[in-house]
């Protein structure tokens, strides 16, 4: 049974931490907002993003001359409501970002753990692969593959995931090397714990923070790569709304109907900004220097 005072003190501490990390919190709020948009899109979006009225094509946003509040952000080249398409587009962008990073993380972390912990020949093979993949832009080869096997969703996710894992391997490997020599790991080994167990119970939890930070940054990058693929016509295909796809379609219209490129661009911008800030915030949270400050403040009031 804790006294009210203690609970209040804990709350106070938590708020102090959040305040120190307010940029990260702000970023997290943006990300939550976008996720809410994605999940509740059918309820939030004013119109069906797949249905358009061609008599109402290319209407500008409501504050411009020919605009109206019927379509707040205007309509696209087939008369579909831009706001609704942007809201639904969050689904595609988030799925693309998260799934491809998931694939990359799974492969990358696994290989990094193996390379770092078991070393020797495994390290040599894996590190060479990483070096090769980082130096040469395999994205270009991926373009050729997508052009042939077809630019559908599944292929795109696979390709994105398969070209992004090297970064993870690198980071994980260097972290593993650092932690391998630490006392409690040595102790565990001396006690006779098997390699796999050591990896998973001792080393892995410490890696988590770097991996999470890296993942969040990569999600942001994937969203931009999706825009790149769409520019080349190899991204998400119509009529599925995706921010990258909308940007790609809009490039001729940049001269005449600026809103078609601007609003998806802003959506990408805000989302990636939010993800980056959140990632930075998480990193700061796990930073040992700052942790010390948090812990010390808890000692004071505790």
């Amino acid at each position: 049974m804790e006294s009210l005072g203690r609970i209040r003190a804990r709350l106070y501490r938590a708020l102090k931490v959040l305040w120190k990390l307010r940029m990260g919190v702000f970023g997290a709020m943006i990300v939550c907002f976008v996720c809410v948009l994605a999940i509740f899109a059918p309820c939030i979006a004013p119109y069906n993003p797949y249905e358009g009225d061609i008599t109402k094509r290319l209407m500008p946003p409501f504050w411009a001359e020919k605009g109206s509040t019927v379509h707040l952000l205007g309509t696209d080249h087939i008369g579909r409501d831009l706001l609704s398409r942007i809201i639904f587009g969050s689904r595609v962008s988030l799925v693309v970002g998260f799934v491809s990073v998931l694939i990359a993380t799974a492969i990358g972390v696994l290989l990094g753990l193996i390379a770092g912990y078991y070393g020797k020949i495994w390290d040599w093979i894996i590190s060479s692969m990483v070096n090769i993949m980082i130096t040469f832009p395999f994205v270009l080869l991926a373009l050729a593959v997508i052009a042939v096997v077809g630019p559908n969703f599944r292929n795109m996710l696979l390709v994105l995931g398969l070209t992004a894992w090297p970064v993870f391997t690198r980071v994980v490997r260097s972290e593993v090397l650092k932690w391998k020599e630490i006392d409690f790991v040595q102790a565990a080994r001396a006690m006779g714990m098997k390699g796999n167990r050591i990896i998973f119970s001792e080393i892995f939890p410490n890696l988590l923070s770097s991996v999470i930070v890296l993942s969040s940054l990569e999600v942001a990058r994937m969203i931009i790569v999706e825009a790149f693929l769409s520019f080349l016509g190899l991204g998400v295909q119509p009529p599925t709304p995706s921010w990258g796809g909308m940007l790609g379609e809009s490039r001729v219209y940049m001269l005449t109907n600026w809103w078609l490129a601007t609003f998806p661009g802003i959506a990408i911008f805000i989302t990636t900004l939010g993800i980056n800030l959140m990632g930075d915030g998480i990193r700061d949270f796990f930073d040992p220097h700052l942790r010390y400050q948090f812990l010390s403040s808890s000692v004071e009031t505790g």
Partner: protein
Amino acid sequence: MRKRRFHLFLLFTIVYGFMIFVASSNVLGAESQGKIVIATAYDLPTMDPHMHSVRPMFVVGLHIWDNLVYRDPVTRKIGPCLATSWKIVDDLTWEFKLRKDVKFQNGDPFTAKDVKFNFERVLNPDQKSPQRPKHISIKSVEVIDDYTVRLRTEKPYPVMLERLANFQMISEKYTKEKGDAYVALNPVGTGPYKFVSWKKGQELVVEANENYWKGAPPIKTLVWRTIPETTTQIAELLAGGVDFIESVPPDQIDLINNSGVARIVEVRVLPVAFIKLDGAGRGGPNPFQDKKVRQAINYAANIDGYIKYIMKGRAVRIATWASPYAFGYDSSIKPYPYDPEKAKKLLVEAGYPNGFEVRHVNSHQRIPGQRQFIEALQQDLAKVGILMKIQEFTDEGPLFTQIREGKAGPMYQMSWGYSGTHDLDAIFYEHCTPQSFWAYWWSDETTKLIEQARASMDPEFRKKIYSKLQQIIKDEAPVLFMWQYVMTYGVANRIAEIKIGSDEIPRFFDVKMKK
């Protein structure tokens, strides 16, 4: 400190907003005389006029070389050029009299021997000319004297003149002396412009031929620049970097017309658009093998709506795939009306009360408005229960391979230019007879009629047959009928007047500049 970051975020947002604001206003200016710069979206493949099949090179072709006959851009009629007159000796023989005192740009004289050489070169299978199929009906060329030739054909060949209007003449002596590889880089013709330089993938420069037999052309220098991106082409036109661009998308027409430096020139051209339906089941069983389904889809598409709202009026509705500019066109046949209810009824009758799913294939071509209209069609078809999935091939080449192997479809987007031949044979033969790989539907009756029309030299007889064919085609609906193109060209205002033919070839040797 972190607050500062926030302020900076605001600052950057304002900067972005400003950039967008500046970019959405307007302004401009113009340049010098004596030169016209033309933008082309594709690289020119070669300077050998027989070894390509791409339209930009045909445009260049009309400027460096001459053909035997010439199509007047305004009247669309064929008139003399290197050939001054011709007569039909009998059903299988044509005799052409050639112009005297014409010299190639290197001094070689143009004679009947050159004509014979040209045809034999193109028809020679070892030469591998992509234009060979177009002239394959010509069996032999006989030199009667220095300025007279006789062309003999396999069967009666009513479209002879049409085909000759786009076949460039090169010099026998020059080609034999220098060899094909040299000729592919250093062109020599009898035309109004002579070759100056060619930086592959960048620009081709030609200069006026002072000794041209029709008289020197008014503009001294022509430059063709390769600019692949539409946005960049438009930007260049607006900034004064180029004077002529093609295929302006309908949505950008107002921008150019209001710019003060350039305007849109619209030309109704021969090519037509339609969507092939796999009626013959070449790609496997599909709903379009039933005539009712094919008709249904014609009722379900709001073609007039697309023309009005997406093409902004830059297209002419047609009833079948026959172009109004082609010989044999029957204007009394009316197009399918837009009637989604009737479409649904027909689908139910055909056994598809809940519609079906189908794949539509197209390639990333430069036909203006294509993407937009296909997506609009997708919407309309969804309303009658047909779920159309769009697959866009990155370019024409990959799509053609699929077409040839019968794997395109069951719907694929076509625009057919008739190879510049203003005659219905050029579409019926290639799209509706069993041996042509373009064809995804045919019938014994139509095949018989097409062969009859081909083999006759009597225009009245042919017209009657083509009328009958158009009636049958409309009823059978082997394709989703659409429209005849009105091509939009962006022309700099310093070019006061330019003639562009229904063959989509602008005549730069015949422009009038603003004083």
